């Protein structure tokens, strides 16, 4: 495994040299290249490289504090990675290499790998626009709004109306469509009957589903789920598993998820990446991962809440 880790950087490196705009297989949805995230002295992610293909369900696992959520934040533009590239549908959506102060004090891997590339930075909303939707580890619903409104907000970014047409209700058709879409999504996630309840008044499991519905409302092609099953009992977890597969097929999505519930991960994911202390220590199918000694070592004694 570890040598794979070392060889990974090599291929993109050549790639950059002969053809800066990478041209990967067209069924590739997401690719991370040498992503490194450093907060001051702390290296949260160390040279992470991975890819997710169209239609896959890929899981990112690892002990707490392994840097999984940080990875998500780098993809969605919440953080600007210290180094590395994120490709989405083959297009580089995040490009960075150590800058200014970082460049000097940064001794990490491939520090100068992308020197010749212009940094690309997008605010999270732009990235959502491109078709990456996410849920949050610690649920972040709009607390003063009903379940229905929460989903409805998700449709805002695909609007064709401007402020005036919206205020003067000249977008009635669009508005109607959005409302139907939102209601429809609520039905799919099975929250139709609580549509008018305050989002925060819903039970935990439903809030998680609502977050997914809200994410779906932004018409994503890639769905990032951050611990969707956290705090659920086994039965709920199983349901969630089926649910994820179901929406994946229904909306022809690609799913990239962080999860601690191993049964869920092993059941539904096609491939699994394992992070430990910001480093990728393993990659493979559920079977491979279950047998992998490094993973077992990393997880030894780590309870899966």
């Amino acid at each position, binding site marked *: 495994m570890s040598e794979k880790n070392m060889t990974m950087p090599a291929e993109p490196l050549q790639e950059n040299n002969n053809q800066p705009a990478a041209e990967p297989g067209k069924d590739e949805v997401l690719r991370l290249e040498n992503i490194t995230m450093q907060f001051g002295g702390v290296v949260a992610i160390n040279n992470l490289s991975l890819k997710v293909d169209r239609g896959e369900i890929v899981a990112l696992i690892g002990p707490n504090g392994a840097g999984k959520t940080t990875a998500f934040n780098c993809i969605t533009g919440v953080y600007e990675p210290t180094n590395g590239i994120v490709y989405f549908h083959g297009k580089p959506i995040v490009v960075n290499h150590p800058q200014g102060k970082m460049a000097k004090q940064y001794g990490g891997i491939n520090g100068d790998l992308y020197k010749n590339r212009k940094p690309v930075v997008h605010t999270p909303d732009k990235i959502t626009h491109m078709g990456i939707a996410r849920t949050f580890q610690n649920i972040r619903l709009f607390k003063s*709004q009903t379940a229905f409104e929460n989903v409805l907000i998700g449709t805002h970014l695909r609007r064709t109306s401007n402020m005036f047409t919206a205020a003067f209700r000249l977008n009635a058709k669009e508005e109607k469509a959005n409302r139907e879409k939102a209601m429809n999504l609520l039905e799919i996630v099975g929250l139709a009957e609580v549509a008018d309840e305050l989002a925060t008044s819903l039970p935990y499991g439903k809030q998680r589903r609502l977050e997914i519905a809200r994410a779906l409302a932004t018409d994503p092609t890639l769905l990032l789920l951050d611990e969707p099953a956290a705090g659920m009992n086994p039965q709920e977890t199983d349901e969630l598993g089926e649910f994820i597969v179901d929406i994946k097929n229904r909306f022809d999505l690609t799913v990239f998820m962080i999860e601690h519930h191993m049964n869920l991960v092993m059941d539904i994911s096609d491939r699994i990446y394992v992070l430990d202390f910001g480093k990728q220590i393993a990659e493979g199918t559920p079977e491979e991962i279950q047998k992998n000694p490094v993973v077992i070592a990393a997880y030894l004694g780590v309870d899966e809440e």
Partner: protein
Amino acid sequence: MNQKKSKKPMIITLVLVAAIYIGVFIAEQTMPATSMLFTVLKKGATYALVAVSMNLLNGFTGIFSLGQAGFMLVGAYVYGIFTIPVAQRAAVYQYFDGGVIQFTVPVIIAMIFAGLAAAFFAFLIGLPVLRLKSDYLAIATLGFAEIIRAIFQWNGLGPVTNGSNMLRSFPSFNDFNIVGADGKVAVYLSTLIPFIMSGVCILLIVLLINSSYGRALKAIRDDEVAAEAMGINLAHHKRLAFCVSSFFAGVGGAMLAMYQTTVQAKSFTSAMTYEILLIVVIGGIGSVTGSVLSSFLFVACSEWWLRFLDEQQMIGDFQVPLLRNGFRLVVFSVIIMIVVLFFRRGIMGDKELPDLLSRRSKSKGRAVK
């Protein structure tokens, strides 16, 4: 907000509003025009608009801005500058031989100018300060209001702004009365017109709040990170809210000018902003209805109902103690402190009139922000 919700409360609300307008009109024709009631209604209508515009920022977008007085000032001045009759300008701009602007525009146009000017200032101000965090933003906007005040008072701009001297003799509310041939007022509109003006503006704000954009603003208020993850462009939407709010603050300023019949930069102090903020708080942060109600309550108390506290009162032969000039304000501020400390949700919380009327409102009981 859900399509399944019954339209009934909405209709009742509209009927109520219509009834109020008719009531105002009738009252104005029947009661003596000198009654304090109309002063309260006029000023109340003006403050209602400004309060709602502030609520749009502080209540619905979660931007804590204290710049309102500054934007009102811009609005009031722009209105005055463009509506003072040319004949009067020599007298008004007495120290700047008539000023440079020698034309007037219709009242409505002037009010729109007022709003646009305020919105323009807001845009400029917004560029740097909207990135700031809550209380830094507050103090920065407060500072900007002070700067605007100084600019408008500067003699260097005298030919336009009349320096620090007052602008006056522009059309006021009373000029909306229709005067008959006999020189007497035939139809009184001096209270109805301000009601219509601020009514229309508030309606526009409500429409915006209930539109897709309004939901986006509320989302930003509730959780900026999540909102951004939903593809809502924070900078753009915040600037939008800021400019819209300022636009209506500017229009409110123009109305204040009409109410006061004179405008002077020195009266648009931070104290004015605080008053409006307190109105918003008393009404309930995040409730348009609340802001409107509390505006009228606030004005009525401060201008009318509590005025007797400022004068010595005799009950029989017993002289009521403490009553003296200024006592009104003391009582008043104590009431406000009580509201701020113990009734933090204000009169309406974040509910609107329709919510109260609808049977569903129970299930929609919302958390304090």
